[in-house]
C-alpha cells in the first residue's frame, strides 16, 4: 500500500526526459548565441542574465510562497555592491564573489523576511515595494559604498580561479553568465519539486488548515524567502560580472517591477518560465526597441498587453496547452479522475 502511495506522490511525467529536454533547449539557445559572430549579441544577452536570475528568485517567492514581491532587489543589491566592493579592493575571484553575494543576499532576505512573511497579498506587496524604494534610496545616499546616485563604473573583471586571467572576452562572459544562471535556476527548480512544492502549495492555499495540521507556515515561508534571497544575491554578483558598473536605479523599483512582470509573463510558479520571461522583456527593451528610439515604453507596454491576452497563465501554461493538444490528437482523452467519483459513492 505504501509503495502505491509513493508511486503517486512523485511527478507522473518521466522527470529525466523533461529535464533533459529543458537543459538541452537552454544549452542550445546559449550555444547559438555564443556561436554567432556578433559580439554585440554576446554582451547584450549576457547582460540580460542577471535580471533573468533575479526573476527566478522573484518567482520562487511569488509563485511558490504566494507572496508577490518587489523586495528581492534588496538581496540583489547586497550581492551586487558586495561583489563590486570586493572587486574594487582587489579580491577578484568569481567564486568568492558568488559565495559572498549568496550569503549576503540570504542574510538580508532572512532579516527582512522575519517581518515580511507575516503579511499577505497587497500589504505584502506594498511592504516589499517599500523595501525596493529603501534599497535604492540607501544605495544613492551611502556614497562611500555605492558612489552616490551616479553609481560605480570601471569595476575590474573577475577571474574564474585565482591565477587565471580576468574574464574578458564577450563570449566568455556570456558562457560564464549562462552557466551560473542555468545552474542556479536548476538548483532552485530541483529544490522546489515534489513534497516541498506540495507543502508550499498547502501553506499558500489554506494557511489555517496547514497550521491546524501542525505545519509551521511562517517558517516555511521564511525559509523560501531567505533561500530566494541567496539566489538574488548571486544574481547581483552576476550583474557586476556582466555589467562591471552599477547605479542605484539598477537595484530600484523599476527593476523590481520588471522582474515581477517577467514572472507573470513566464507563469508565476515556473522558474524557467520566469527566466525566459525576463529575457523576452529585455530583448524587447534592449534589442528591438533600440531600432525605434523613443518608443521603448510603447513596445514594452504592447508586449505586456499581448502577454496578458495571449498567454493566460504565462508561458508555462502555453506549453502545457500545446502538450495537451498534441497528446489529445491520436488517442482519446485520458479518463478523468472525476468519472469514478461521479459513479460510485459509498
Amino acid at each position, binding site marked *: 500500500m505504501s509503495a502505491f502511495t509513493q508511486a503517486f506522490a512523485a511527478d507522473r511525467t518521466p522527470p529525466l526526459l523533461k529535464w533533459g529536454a529543458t537543459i538541452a533547449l537552454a544549452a542550445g539557445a546559449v550555444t547559438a548565441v555564443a556561436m554567432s559572430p556578433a559580439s554585440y549579441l554576446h554582451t547584450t544577452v549576457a547582460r540580460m542574465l542577471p535580471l533573468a536570475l533575479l526573476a527566478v528568485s522573484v518567482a520562487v517567492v511569488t509563485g511558490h510562497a504566494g507572496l508577490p514581491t518587489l523586495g528581492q532587489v534588496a538581496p540583489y543589491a547586497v550581492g551586487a555592491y558586495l561583489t563590486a566592493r570586493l572587486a574594487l579592493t582587489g579580491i577578484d575571484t568569481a567564486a568568492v564573489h558568488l559565495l559572498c553575494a549568496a550569503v549576503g543576499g540570504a542574510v538580508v532576505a532572512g532579516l527582512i523576511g522575519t517581518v515580511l512573511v*507575516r503579511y499577505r497579498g497587497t500589504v505584502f506587496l*506594498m*511592504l516589499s515595494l*517599500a523595501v525596493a524604494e529603501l534599497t535604492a534610496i540607501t544605495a544613492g545616499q551611502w556614497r562611500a559604498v555605492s558612489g552616490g546616485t551616479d553609481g560605480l563604473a570601471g569595476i575590474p573583471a573577475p577571474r574564474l580561479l585565482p591565477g587565471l586571467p580576468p574574464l574578458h572576452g564577450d563570449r566568455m562572459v556570456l558562457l560564464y553568465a549562462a552557466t551560473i544562471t542555468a545552474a542556479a535556476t536548476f538548483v532552485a527548480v530541483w529544490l522546489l519539486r515534489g513534497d516541498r512544492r506540495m507543502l508550499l502549495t498547502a501553506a499558500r492555499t489554506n494557511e489555517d488548515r496547514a497550521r491546524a495540521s501542525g505545519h509551521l507556515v511562517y517558517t516555511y515561508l521564511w525559509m523560501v524567502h531567505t533561500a530566494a534571497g541567496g539566489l538574488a544575491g548571486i544574481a547581483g554578483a552576476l550583474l557586476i560580472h556582466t555589467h562591471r558598473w552599477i547605479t542605484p536605479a539598477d537595484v530600484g523599483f523599476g527593476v523590481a517591477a520588471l522582474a515581477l512582470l517577467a514572472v507573470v509573463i513566464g507563469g508565476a510558479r515556473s522558474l524557467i518560465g520566469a527566466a525566459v520571461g525576463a529575457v523576452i522583456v529585455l530583448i524587447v527593451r534592449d534589442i528591438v526597441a533600440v531600432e525605434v528610439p523613443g518608443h521603448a*515604453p510603447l513596445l514594452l507596454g*504592447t508586449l505586456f498587453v499581448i502577454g496578458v491576452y495571449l498567454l493566460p497563465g504565462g508561458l508555462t501554461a502555453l506549453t502545457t496547452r500545446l502538450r495537451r493538444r498534441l497528446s489529445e490528437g491520436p488517442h482519446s482523452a485520458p479518463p478523468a479522475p472525476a468519472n469514478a467519483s461521479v459513479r460510485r459513492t459509498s
Partner: protein
Amino acid sequence: MHVDTLVITAVDGVAYGLLLAIAAAGLTVAFGAGGVLNLAHGVLIAAGGYIAATTTAGTWASLAAATVLATVAGAAGGAVLAAATAGLRGRGHLDQALLTFGIAMIGGNLLTTIFGSDVLRPRMPAALEGTVMVVGYRYPIDRLAVLAVAVLVAAVGYVVLHRSRAGRLIRATVDDRAMVAGIGVNPRTVDAAVLVTSGALAGLAGALATPILGVGPGTADTTLLLSLIIVVCGGFGSVPGAVTAAIGVGVVQTVGVVTVPTAAPYLLIAAMTVTLVARRPTVPNGAAS
C-alpha cells in the same frame, strides 16, 4: 523651528494631503473598493493634466471647460480599461497589474508624443494665482481652492461608497461576483461603472493638481506611487481611511521633511512601512470558524 512656521507648514501639509487625496480618489474606487489593481491610474491623471494645461487660458470659463473635458477624457480612459480588464476577471491581481502597467506604458508614450515632453502648467484665472495671509503667513489661494474641492470629493465619495447601495454592490462584487449576479445585478456593469468613475476622478484630479504641481513625463509615476500608498495605508476602499492616509502623507512630506531633513528621503516610505506593519497581519483565506 518657530511654532507659527510649524503651524503654517502643518496647514500646508493638510492642504497638500488633500490634494493627494483627490489624486488617490480614483484609485480608492478602482483598487480599494473595486479590487482592480489599476496601474494606469497615474497616466489618466497625467492625461487630465495635459488636457487642462492645453485648454486653460486664464479665464474662469476655460478653467471650467478644462475641468469638464479632463473628467470626460478620464472617464473615457476608464471605459477603455474596463473593456480591457473585462476578460481578466478571476485571474488575479498580478495579471491585472501586467495589463494595466502595459496600458500605462503605452498611454504614457502616447501622451509625450501628443503633448511633448515639456512640463506644462495650466494658466489659472488671476484670482487663483495670488496668496492670502494665514496666521501671518502667506498662503497660496489655489491650494485653498483645491482644499475645498477635496473636501467636496471626499464627502461625495463617502456617501457613495459607504452609504449607498452602489458602494455596497461594488464591495460585494469583489467578494463574490456570482452572488451579486444572483441578486439580479450584472457584475460586469458594476465593474465598468467602477472603472469609468475611477477614470473620471483621475481626470478631474489631473485638472486640479496640475496648476499646483505641473504635468510632465514624470507625473504619471509619481502620482501612481503616492496614490497606491494612500489607498493601501488607508485600508482599501475606505474614504475616511484614504483621507487620513493622504493627510498623513501630506504632513510627513511637509512637517516631517523640514523637521528632520537628514531623514527626508526615507520618511515617506518609512511612514508607510510603520503604518502597514502596525496593522495586524491578516490572513486572507480565513477557514477558521
